[in-house]
């Protein structure tokens, strides 16, 4: 089933949670709504589910307008952030609930519930109460419960937010496999970029009630449409610079920027990801040696601190003549070869950069 959201707005008192949001979710896609707290992602999810009603806008399911339809009649499966399991019912009864309220015959209920218990790998635990389960198990019960009624779309509100890191990772992979198996259209909300990227076919980045960008994980990461997207996804160094004649200048170093061919200089912000900066040692005569052996335009800096985390080493540098920090991510074996030490002189060169011209909405 596909979902089309058109111009949805929603306010809670004076707070505008959603501002004219439009979204298309094709059939069978696993979509992530990604954004910080207050971005409106949960509100949007709940509106799709029918647990909130929009102030303006419309929602369509397979072309049918369902904006006024009650949650009960929408055939959605909703998994709540804190599971909302029925605490006085057993696991079996929890999963069976949707079937029981539809007066499904007892045998059919039993067959379906046991099928789901197998699916979520909780066979034998049907008699337990939620309080006797771990967080990860409760989450799986919540999922099974939502799937029991054979919904047309599955909606998950921060499904793994309340779990330990290790359990989170396991369940993430399991959910992806489940989706591949069942192929149900699914939308989930998260503020964890890693989770969104690992799980989703497409990611919708939201901020302040608006959609900043929608696309595959690669697309939004490599080609961020706005500074917010760039800053939110992964780490970034931000600098003042200027653009002129098809080039952006960062600390005097030119970067190709054909989007601004004008002769008149303008202020710009230059966004550089730590792993898109290249670090090289400074030769004896003070000139930088680029990776390809040629002297290239680069910035001299001093190493302040080196911090290794696994396969990546983060180098904190201070460019000469400046008192701000630049972060550069270098593969750890390269860092080892360079023998980076605090106080060492290095040269930084941008491999890739993103430039944004300042405008009122580009404030981070």
């Amino acid at each position, binding site marked *: 089933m596909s979902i089309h959201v058109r111009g949805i707005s929603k306010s809670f008192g004076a707070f505008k949670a959603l501002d004219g949001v439009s979204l298309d979710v094709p059939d069978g896609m696993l979509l992530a709504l990604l954004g910080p707290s207050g971005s409106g992602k949960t509100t949007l999810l709940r509106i799709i589910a029918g647990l*909130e009603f929009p102030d303006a806008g419309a929602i369509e399911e397979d072309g049918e307008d369902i904006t006024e339809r009650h949650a009960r009649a929408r055939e959605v499966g*909703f998994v709540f952030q804190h599971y*909302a399991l*029925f605490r006085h019912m057993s696991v079996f009864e929890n999963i069976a609930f949707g079937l029981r309220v*539809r007066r499904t015959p007892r045998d059919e209920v039993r067959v379906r519930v046991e099928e789901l218990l197998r699916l979520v790998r909780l066979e034998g635990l049907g008699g337990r109460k939620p*309080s006797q389960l771990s967080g990860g198990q409760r989450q799986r019960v919540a999922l099974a419960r939502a799937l029991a009624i054979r919904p047309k779309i599955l909606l998950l509100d921060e499904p793994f937010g309340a779990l330990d890191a290790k359990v989170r990772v396991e369940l993430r992979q399991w959910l992806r496999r489940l989706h591949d198996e069942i192929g149900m259209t699914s939308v989930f909300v998260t503020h964890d970029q890693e989770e969104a990227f690992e799980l989703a076919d497409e990611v919708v980045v939201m901020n302040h009630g608006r959609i900043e960008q929608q696309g595959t994980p690669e697309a939004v990461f490599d080609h961020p449409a706005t500074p917010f997207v760039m800053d939110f996804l992964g780490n970034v160094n931000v600098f003042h610079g200027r653009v002129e004649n098809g080039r952006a200048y960062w600390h005097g170093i030119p970067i190709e920027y054909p989007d601004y061919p004008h002769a008149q200089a303008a202020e710009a912000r230059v966004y550089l990801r730590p792993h898109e900066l290249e670090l090289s040692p400074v030769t004896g005569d003070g000139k930088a040696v680029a990776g390809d052996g040629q002297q290239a335009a680069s910035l001299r800096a001093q190493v302040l601190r080196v911090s290794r985390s696994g396969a990546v080493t983060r180098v904190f540098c201070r460019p000469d003549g400046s008192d701000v920090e630049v972060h550069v991510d270098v593969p750890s074996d390269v860092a080892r070869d360079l023998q980076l030490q605090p106080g060492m002189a290095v040269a930084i060169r941008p491999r890739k950069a993103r430039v944004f011209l300042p405008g009122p909405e580009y404030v981070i």
Partner: protein
Amino acid sequence: MAPAGNSRRDRGTGRAGGAALAVAAVAIVGGLIVVPLVSVFVQAFAEGAGHWWAALADDPDTRHAIWLTLTVAPVAVACNTLFGVAAAWLVARFRFPGRSLLISLVDVPFSVSPVVAGLSLVLIFGRQGLLGPTLAALGWKVIFSWPGLVLATTFVTLPLVVRELIPVMEAIGPEEEMAAVSLGATGWQVFWRVTLPNIRWALLHGVVLANARAMGEFGAVYVVSGHIAGVTDTMPLRVEKLFQEYRQPASMAVASVLAGLALVTLVAKYVIEHRLEAEARDLARARATDDAAPHQTTGEVSP
């Protein structure tokens, strides 16, 4: 002087001070509560169990009074339970203009003197009251009759069930009920299958308290009943009537039955509170294992 004893409780008071205070507390509770309570039973059975039974069973007016209490109180409590559930659902699950006013109004019966409550009912339903002529024409009797007793008793016990349910329902939150709705449950199914199991102990607690209050109500019932012996005297009124007639042993006998019921109430209350505390602990533990995100009550507005 170093505090004696390992338990934290003894700290801050010291052994001697603690003992003295404990003795004082026991004396206070003993003198104010235990002695009178014991005295009721002792005086009731002073002339033996035979006389006690005779005082209750042989006197038709007393028999009627017992029967009246046992019919008026449960009806009043049943009405209050229905009201309590409806009001708690409204207040705990929805936000709407006038909500705070409603909550304050529910508390009013607590602070109004029962005599004032009874008087206001007489002013409406009495012969010279607002609806007096209408009722007389219809041949309905409210004041000096069973319906009046039920009304008066319902009034004074009105807040009891609601006040138990609202905190519990707010603490649990609406998420389970929302989940039920998203799974396709109708309103009645949501209430019966999800809400009621979650509030059953709080509900029972409220019912027990309301029942105790209803059976013991004096002032409001006194005013609306006209205290016609054998017709509209409930047990507390019977106690007073016998007292006025200087029939102390009989009065004590009836009083002892009421006191016995009170003790049963207390035991039931104690057991239920045990369960309530256990559930509150479970709730806190479940919340603690999740992250510290606050729960939400609903942002509903009247459609």
